[in-house]
């Protein structure tokens, strides 16, 4: 092993050389099969008996009846024009998973939506979809969704519900009582129009904007201070040359991670642009974004704002401005040298620098806005003109609670928000709502909040409804349903219009609004609206010509007041509540795919943990799985400890979104709800809580982690290089013997005769420099290939079924390590170790370079998994039943559902390849590069995965396989992997190599 290669580790125990962990990792399977005990014979029968029975069984099978049961073919009575059985229909639409509203293409087969893909033509999301968006197709079929409207949780009819609600609203208006509509910040322009129609109909009505994580609210309030407008600017990471992020996980969960990931990869395309934006991350807990950063500074949560304040102070000095409000800020604990490094880098790029800040603290957002104003980056990396205006008149949730307590509220409508679960004051809601005569919830299920409301008017999911969105000013994204509502649900827009006395179908309202508002601005002169509309529906997005919008100007007058409360408390523990890339704020929690995606950093599935720093764990003698009680203000939550590298020593970090009680059969009781621990400061919930108590309980709870039971054995699976070194040497960091893609068969000594590929030869190239580890590919693969979720117990036994995983490797200091993510799937080896050991030829090589798994031949010896060097083969220990008649509708009819006792693994989406080949033949043309895309490639927000025919010299994958950064795994073993990895490039500024 070369000494120049960095030493990588996957877990703290591996780094420390814990003998138990090393021994565990040596075993192929996490536990021994109970062969000797469970099946021990009470009395041994003879070998002769065994053969007698074998013979009889074989004879019986041979002479047995050969007729299959009668099957029916049931055609349509009248076939809809657009439907041909066996062909997929695609609908362009808009995601409803979070406020980012990415563009989607929904694949339906025989009327069932089965897959979500990204819309390449969408100018904001540009073909990417995150894990949550991918999983929304499973949430559509969620058996725990509400199936009908309800009164006091009992079934009712829409007519009765409408009569009751309208009557209640009328009474409240007549009594002069307030009507409050509690809704998220981002609903889409047409839904907002429906809300306004409702507000006009009821003069005492007002909106209350509710957001569990408080991120948009903080930015909006900060821009109200610094620019006089409540808005969220459009951040442009693609235009940035230096990025300083203070706790903003913009690649994982912050505002619009899919769009930001693509922009970020473009700004850091060292190979293409010969330059690379430098990324500083200042954060208390290791996030996906921190893992990607070139320089990561670890601070206590309470030090984020002072550190940002000190940075702004230094920027003001550089700019020659005096900002008196900054003087009052406490001094930060972050070293002066780190601050200077950031300030110098930012100031050098001025207008191409970008400072972003995460979290729910208004003061820090005010500082970030000030930093961008001082740098002059407004208009380039921070676009106010393209920003998203937020409801200026909205009340906060805290204000609503005070109003309800004062008794002035006659009706409350919850439009898809769940404060009973996700607000620290959630417990009070039950008693408070008793005093409100009318309460309505439109949540998609009878969840924590909806069960408290008198009426439940369930909304349809985004896959069943019309709608629109404006993720960036002038980019209008249409949502169209891919299926009629599965249940007796009704779009929230229709409900609002009905209660406002202006009942009309959502489609009519949307189309009329587009005719009036969008068509006139679209500059489609000479076109009639019908054609414009049809085209918009087909494409899913319309980009309006840029209108001259005057961007609001920065002003200093409110700074002093906004920054007055900033303090740096000195406490033993600070609690950080953070969202994960999978269950986010908890709304999509009842989804097996999302529960089972390993967290890209902790590798934990099914539940949340209390993350603490290695140093702190050592001092307290806490290990992974030791249960601790985290308490503040009389509320406690018990959670298992996960010792996480890159956590600040004063921090205990807990993911929100778990511990649901009324989400459904998947999420209920998984993990613990950490929202009640959140602080309430001046009526706002805050996710950083100083001064919590942490107390070991002495109990143990095993953690369902993945990856850690595999071992690297010191091999250079991941390679990386410094930008400066890479620019002078394209093979920097990749100098290992045979590290350059010489192709297969070129190994000087081989016992293999090799294969001949006369036609296509399929291959993948994965750019480690682009990959952020977001795990969208994992869920996309799961959806495409009918991969079951196995549940917590089976993950504990190492039996998760994912065909592809994203391995996470650490390097360096355990207090603040560097991280590399590596997507790992079947390597489709030329000389595949699995193929040589299969006794029944169930895994064989195809003429197009694929390592094929033949389920019907497999007898389950698992020799192949044992011999697989990359451990990508997964065994069906059980029949993972797809027996729920609703949930099984998500299955892809082009991929077989595997049964118990067979091995399975990545097929390089062979069904998609076959489909593309058949399509090309039908059209009488040769197959083009890009015709066939694997599921992981299609959804990748970073476009880090490339698939194609390596025999076609013009294909992207053929070019990348000859790149200086190209290497293949275990080349020294001559396995001849078909997957090319490209070295990760960092821009730490250290100048030298790694």
């Amino acid at each position, binding site marked *: 092993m070369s000494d120049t290669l960095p030493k990588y580790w996957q877990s703290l125990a591996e780094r420390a050389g814990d003998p138990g962990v090393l021994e565990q990792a040596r075993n192929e399977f996490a536990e021994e099969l109970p062969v*000797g005990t469970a*099946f*021990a*014979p*009470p009395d*041994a*029968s003879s*070998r002769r*008996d*065994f053969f007698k*029975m074998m013979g*009889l*069984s074989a*004879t*019986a*099978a*041979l*002479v*047995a*009846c*050969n*007729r*299959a049961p*009668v*099957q*029916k*073919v*049931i*055609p*349509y*009575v*009248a*076939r809809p024009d657009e439907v*041909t*059985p*066996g*062909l997929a229909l695609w609908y362009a639409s808009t995601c409803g998973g979070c406020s980012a509203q990415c563009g989607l293409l929904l694949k339906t087969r025989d009327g069932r939506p089965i897959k979500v893909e990204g819309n390449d033509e969408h100018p904001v999301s540009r073909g990417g979809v995150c894990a949550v968006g991918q999983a929304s197709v499973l949430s559509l079929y969620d058996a725990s969704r509400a199936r009908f409207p309800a009164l006091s949780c009992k079934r009712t009819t829409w007519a009765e519900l409408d009569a009751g609600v309208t009557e209640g609203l009328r009474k409240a208006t007549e009594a002069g009582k307030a009507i409050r509509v509690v809704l998220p910040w981002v609903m889409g322009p047409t839904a907002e129009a429906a809300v306004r129609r409702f507000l006009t109909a009821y003069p005492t009505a007002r909106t209350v904007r509710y957001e569990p994580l408080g991120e948009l609210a903080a930015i909006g309030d900060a821009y109200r201070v610094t620019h006089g407008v409540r808005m969220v600017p459009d951040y442009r990471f693609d235009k940035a040359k230096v990025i300083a992020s203070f706790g903003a996980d913009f690649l994982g969960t912050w505002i619009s991670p899919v769009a930001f990931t693509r922009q970020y990869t473009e700004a850091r395309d060292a190979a293409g642009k010969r330059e690379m934006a430098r990324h500083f991350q200042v954060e208390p807990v290791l996030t996906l974004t921190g893992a990607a950063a070139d320089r990561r500074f670890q601070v206590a949560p309470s030090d984020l704002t002072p550190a940002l304040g000190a940075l702004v102070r230094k920027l003001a000095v550089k700019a020659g401005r005096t900002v008196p409000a900054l003087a009052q800020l406490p001094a930060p604990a972050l070293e002066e040298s780190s601050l200077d490094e950031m300030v110098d880098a930012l100031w050098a790029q001025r207008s191409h620098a970008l400072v972003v800040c995460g979290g729910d603290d208004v003061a820090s957002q005010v500082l970030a806005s000030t930093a961008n104003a001082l740098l002059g980056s407004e208009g380039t990396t921070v676009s106010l003109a393209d920003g998203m205006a937020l409801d200026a008149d909205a009340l906060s949730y805290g204000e609503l609670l005070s109003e309800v307590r004062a008794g002035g509220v006659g009706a409350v409508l919850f439009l898809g928000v769940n404060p009973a679960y996700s607000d620290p004051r959630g417990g009070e809601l039950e008693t408070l709502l008793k005093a409100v005569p009318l309460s309505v919830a439109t949540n998609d299920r009878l969840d924590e909040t909806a069960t408290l409301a008198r009426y439940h008017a369930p909304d349809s999911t985004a896959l069943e409804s019309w709608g629109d969105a404006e993720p960036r000013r002038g980019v209008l994204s249409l949502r169209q349903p891919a299926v009629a509502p599965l249940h007796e649900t009704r779009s929230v827009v229709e409900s609002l219009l009905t209660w406002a006395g202006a009942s009309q179908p959502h489609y009519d309202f949307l189309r009329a609004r587009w005719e009036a508002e969008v068509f006139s601005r679209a500059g489609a002169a000479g076109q009639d609206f019908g054609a414009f509309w049809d085209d918009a529906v087909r494409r899913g997005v319309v980009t309006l010509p840029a209108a001259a919008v005057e961007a609001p100007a920065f002003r200093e007058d409110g700074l002093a007041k906004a920054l007055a409360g900033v303090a740096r408390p000195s406490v033993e523990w600070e609690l950080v509540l953070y969202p994960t890339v999978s269950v986010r704020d908890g709304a999509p929690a009842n989804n097996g795919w999302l529960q089972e995606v390993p967290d890209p950093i902790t590798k934990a599935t099914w539940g949340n943990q209390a993350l603490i720093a290695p140093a702190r764990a050592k001092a307290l003698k806490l290990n992974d799985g030791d249960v601790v009680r985290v308490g503040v203000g009389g509320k406690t939550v018990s959670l298992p400890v996960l010792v996480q590298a890159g956590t600040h020593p004063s921090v205990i970090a807990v993911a929100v979104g778990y511990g649901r009680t009324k989400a459904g059969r998947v999420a209920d009781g998984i993990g613990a709800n950490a929202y009640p621990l959140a602080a309430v400061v001046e009526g706002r919930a805050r996710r950083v809580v100083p001064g919590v108590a942490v107390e070991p309980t002495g109990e143990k709870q095993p953690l369902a982690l993945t990856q850690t039971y595999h071992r690297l054995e010191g091999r250079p699976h991941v390679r990386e290089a410094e930008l400066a070194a890479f620019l002078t040497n394209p093979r920097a960091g990749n100098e290992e013997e045979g590290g350059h893609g010489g192709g297969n068969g070129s190994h000087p000594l081989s016992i293999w005769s090799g294969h001949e590929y006369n*036609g296509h030869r399929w291959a993948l190239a994965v750019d480690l420099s682009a990959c952020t580890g977001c795990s969208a590919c994992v869920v996309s693969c799961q959806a495409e290939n009918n991969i079951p979720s196995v549940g917590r117990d089976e993950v504990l036994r190492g039996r998760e079924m994912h065909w592809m995983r994203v391995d996470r490797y650490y390097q360096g200091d355990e207090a603040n390590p560097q991280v590399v993510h590596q997507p790992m799937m079947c390597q489709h080896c030329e000389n595949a170790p699995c193929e040589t050991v299969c006794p029944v030829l169930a895994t*064989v090589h*195809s*003429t*197009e370079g*694929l390592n*094929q798994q*033949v*389920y*019907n031949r497999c007898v389950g010896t698992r020799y192949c998994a044992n011999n697989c060097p990359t451990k990508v083969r997964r065994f069906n220990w059980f029949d993972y039943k797809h027996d729920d008649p609703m949930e099984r509708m998500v299955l892809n009819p*082009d991929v*077989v559902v595997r049964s118990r006792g067979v091995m399975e693994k990545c*097929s390089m989406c*062979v*069904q998609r390849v*076959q489909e593309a080949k*058949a399509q090309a*033949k*039908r*059209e*009488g*043309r*040769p197959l083009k590069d890009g015709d066939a895309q694997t599921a992981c490639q299609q959804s990748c927000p970073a476009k880090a995965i490339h698939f194609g025919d390596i025999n076609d010299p013009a294909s992207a994958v053929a070019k990348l396989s000859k790149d200086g950064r190209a290497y293949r795994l275990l080349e020294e073993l001559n396995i001849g992997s078909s997957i090319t990895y490209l070295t990760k490039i960092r821009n730490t500024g250290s100048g030298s190599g790694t």
Partner: protein
Amino acid sequence: MNDASIHTPRLTRAAGWAGALAALALSGCSGPVNNQQGYMPEQPVAFSHAVHAGQYELDCQYCHVGAEKSRHAGVPPSSVCMNCHTQVKKDSPEIQKVAASVAENKPLEWVRIHRLPDHAYFNHASHVTSGLQCQTCHGPVQEMVRLEQVEPMTMGWCLDCHRKTAAEQVSAPPPSAPRSGELLAMSSGTPPPAPLKEPRILQPPTDCSSCHR
């Protein structure tokens, strides 16, 4: 294994005997294992391919519209029958069954004859566009009054043809009529896709993953 001999637990052995006996009891049919050659069930409507495809020479794809573009050839919806039968043979009791299906919006439940196992992904479009005659797999349908499975439809039978076609270097016929997608392209004014210059030599795959995924 810790012991040298193979043990068969009592429970397993008992179950094995029972299973073997049950299988014997069920036996009695003859013919090759797992194929339905000669299967000719009664259908809900006494439809005659001999009349439609033979006597009147209707194109197969008039009814089986998916054959050229989809995996499935498809069984025609009742409404397709009524394109003609609102005029022709209206009084036949068999046609009245079809008319009733349309009137009541209740699909006819045909009995499936040609059937591959669920783990085999056969693609009609690929075969039809390669110039394969429907009769190669489905037999002389135009002579059948009641439809029958003629060929064994086993994997070996599929592979025999794939290997033979590859060995004989058969080429696909040049598309004569506009292909699917071209009519639309022509009507909208965009040029149709350029056809392959050389005739395409058929290379029927024999890889497992061509049919099994």
